[in-house]
């Protein structure tokens, strides 16, 4: 691992065109992704996490644009390139080769009328000149990696596979051209518990073996705790907390992250306190003044003495600020966030 990040995102803004004017879904996100590292983007629906994930590979739908910011990718030879200014042909070569996207497999990420093998061959052929037998061999390799039986899966149509198998096929396809970065959208959502477990195990193992870096988008905090080295919590289009997952889960410094963790009931042991966050995320088209979380924030209300959110929370949207060596938070009162998650466990 070198000190330079493989992906450096700076002040990235994503806008969607709507009949009512542009709406900012991502409002200035900055983070680094280092080689071999796994970063989770977590948050509720509509917080901009999927949009940010798509923007990293410039896969935004047509109504989306990136008016501002930089996504700087560092190649293996050390040279860097800003993805947002890449030309079409350059971008085509970049995707799959350098960085690949794994969409939510339970949904319609695979072409339903093509056999798995044809979709895999297409991907290879679009990017590399490879003989049929070499392509076949490569497909076998990646399917083996995700613990699928190539002979059974390759001639199948997507509908003949289970949700977990489809997700594994998508991961295998993403690995075809040995990319250095993987972006995964909700990799285990809508899958059964044991299937989720096998996907998680496969990803952990592959990351150890192949050393790619990955960014994954999830609303499942437990998955982030399981699979991520670092966690970025998003709220209303911004990263509001970013840090090593051990730190973030042991001592979250943003009241929103703390609230999300408190809302997850544990499977093992008894949690002393499970609570929800009141209200819902604000509309991105009409954000409240100041910190967009202030209207739901218990801490701010406490500081404000029952008079609604504290003054400073309504006046200024806090910047992401360093609070620990590798921990950044965007909260005016981050030093007052109290968090204990006591789970009484015996014998795990």
């Amino acid at each position, binding site marked *: 691992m070198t000190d330079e990040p493989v992906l450096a995102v700076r002040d990235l803004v994503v806008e969607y065109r709507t009949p009512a004017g542009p709406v900012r879904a991502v409002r200035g996100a900055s983070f680094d992704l280092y080689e071999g590292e796994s970063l989770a983007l977590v948050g*509720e*629906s509509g917080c901009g996490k999927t949009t940010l994930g798509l923007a990293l590979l410039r896969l935004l739908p047509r109504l989306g644009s990136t008016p501002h910011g930089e996504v700087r990718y560092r190649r293996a030879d050390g040279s860097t390139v800003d993805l947002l200014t890449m030309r079409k042909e350059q971008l085509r070569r970049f995707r799959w080769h350098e960085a690949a996207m794994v969409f939510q497999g339970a949904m319609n990420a695979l072409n339903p009328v093509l056999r798995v093998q044809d979709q895999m061959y297409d991907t290879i052929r679009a990017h590399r000149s490879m003989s049929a037998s070499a392509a076949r061999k490569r497909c076998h390799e990646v399917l083996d990696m995700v*613990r699928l039986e190539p002979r059974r899966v390759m001639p199948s149509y997507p509908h003949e596979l*289970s*949700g*977990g198998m489809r997700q594994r096929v998508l991961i295998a396809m993403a690995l075809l051209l040995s990319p250095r970065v993987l972006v995964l959208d909700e990799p285990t959502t809508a899958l*059964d*518990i*044991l*299937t*989720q*477990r*096998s996907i*998680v*195990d496969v990803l952990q193992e592959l990351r150890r073996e192949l050393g790619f870096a990955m960014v994954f988008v999830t*609303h*499942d*905090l*437990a*998955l*982030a*705790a*399981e*699979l991520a080295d670092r966690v970025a919590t998003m709220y209303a289009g911004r990263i509001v907390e970013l840090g090593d*997952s*051990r730190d973030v*889960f*042991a001592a979250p410094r943003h009241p929103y992250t703390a*609230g*999300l*963790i408190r*809302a*997850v*009931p*544990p*499977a*093992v042991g008894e949690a002393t306190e*499970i*609570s*929800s*966050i*009141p209200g*819902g995320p604000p509309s991105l088209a009409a954000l409240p003044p100041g910190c967009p979380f202030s209207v739901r924030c218990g801490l701010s209300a406490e500081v404000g003495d029952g008079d609604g959110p504290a003054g400073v929370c309504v006046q200024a949207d806090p910047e992401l600020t360093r609070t620990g060596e590798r921990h950044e938070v965007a909260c005016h009162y981050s030093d007052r966030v109290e968090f204990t*998650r006591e*789970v009484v*466990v015996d014998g*795990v």
Partner: protein
Amino acid sequence: MASEPLLSLESVSQVFTSRRGEIPAVRDVSLDLAAGTVLCLVGESGSGKTTTARIAAGLNRPTGGTVRFAGRDVWGGDRTAFREFRRSVQYVHQDPYASLNPIRTVFATLAGPMRRHRLVANRDEAWQKASELLERVDLTPPENFLTKYPHQLSGGQRQRVAVARALTLGPKLIIADESTSMLDVSIRISLLAMLSRLSTDLGVAFLFITHDLALAKYFGRDGDIAVMYLGRVVEYGPTREVIGTPRHPYTRALLAAIPEPDPELNARKRSAGSLLRSMDTPSLLRLPTGCTFHPRCPSWVEGECDVSVPRLEALDADARHEVACPPVLRQEADAAVPALSEQDGTG
């Protein structure tokens, strides 16, 4: 259970016929649910939990076994009893985007069943009653919601409307089929808290179906839980006991597989290693012989588990905790009488 159960399934089975053969979706399932209590059904896709729920709701007629509601056989031919049963049991579906009619306002959605069953005399009364229902499900002030269409509501709000609709006829049992799985974590907990309150305030019983054991444990902590695998119940008992000390290898594997929002705990869990021999769930069309879990079970006994079909049996005479796994039951029996076996030296 001393009192007569509100709903009981007595060895119900459901076989579907498809072009590829017969699909035994539910086999020999017996469950009891007392008034005002919670029963959780957990299992993976294909475990038969939704089919069991549909049988419990009277939406499917089982191909075998008996469904009793308040003691009466609902398929026994008594039409009044059947109507009474259907009105007393309401179903809340998984997807609030699909289960509400998009061209009906919240008021129309709630007023429909009330009018049809003549529970209200006129529109004003229906409005009044609909408002009360919305308050029950924490959609306040109700005037803000009654004139809205589903597309104007968030997922959590829609699901609350679906619950309010289920309450219109004063049900005794609500069947919630993965009703919170499409919602964000924070909204999920507040919806569950609301359902718990309904259970306490109105004495409504819940059949809660989920694949998430942590959620079942949270919502059903004072009730019972049944773990299903390939159409059969493999473990059944008070939720606290089943989740606290799971006995069936399948339940144990499920619990071990769930990630927790705690990296340290996950690392410890992971170091325990995988608990299954195979990741693949067998097809219902080609079920394994004997115990259907044996091809995946880490502690199967050759010549026994692949031959004979295990039955649910209580761990000991006065326990309500039942397990369908003879090796586990034998272990329990041995552990229960250590002093005795030491004395006479047979072990």
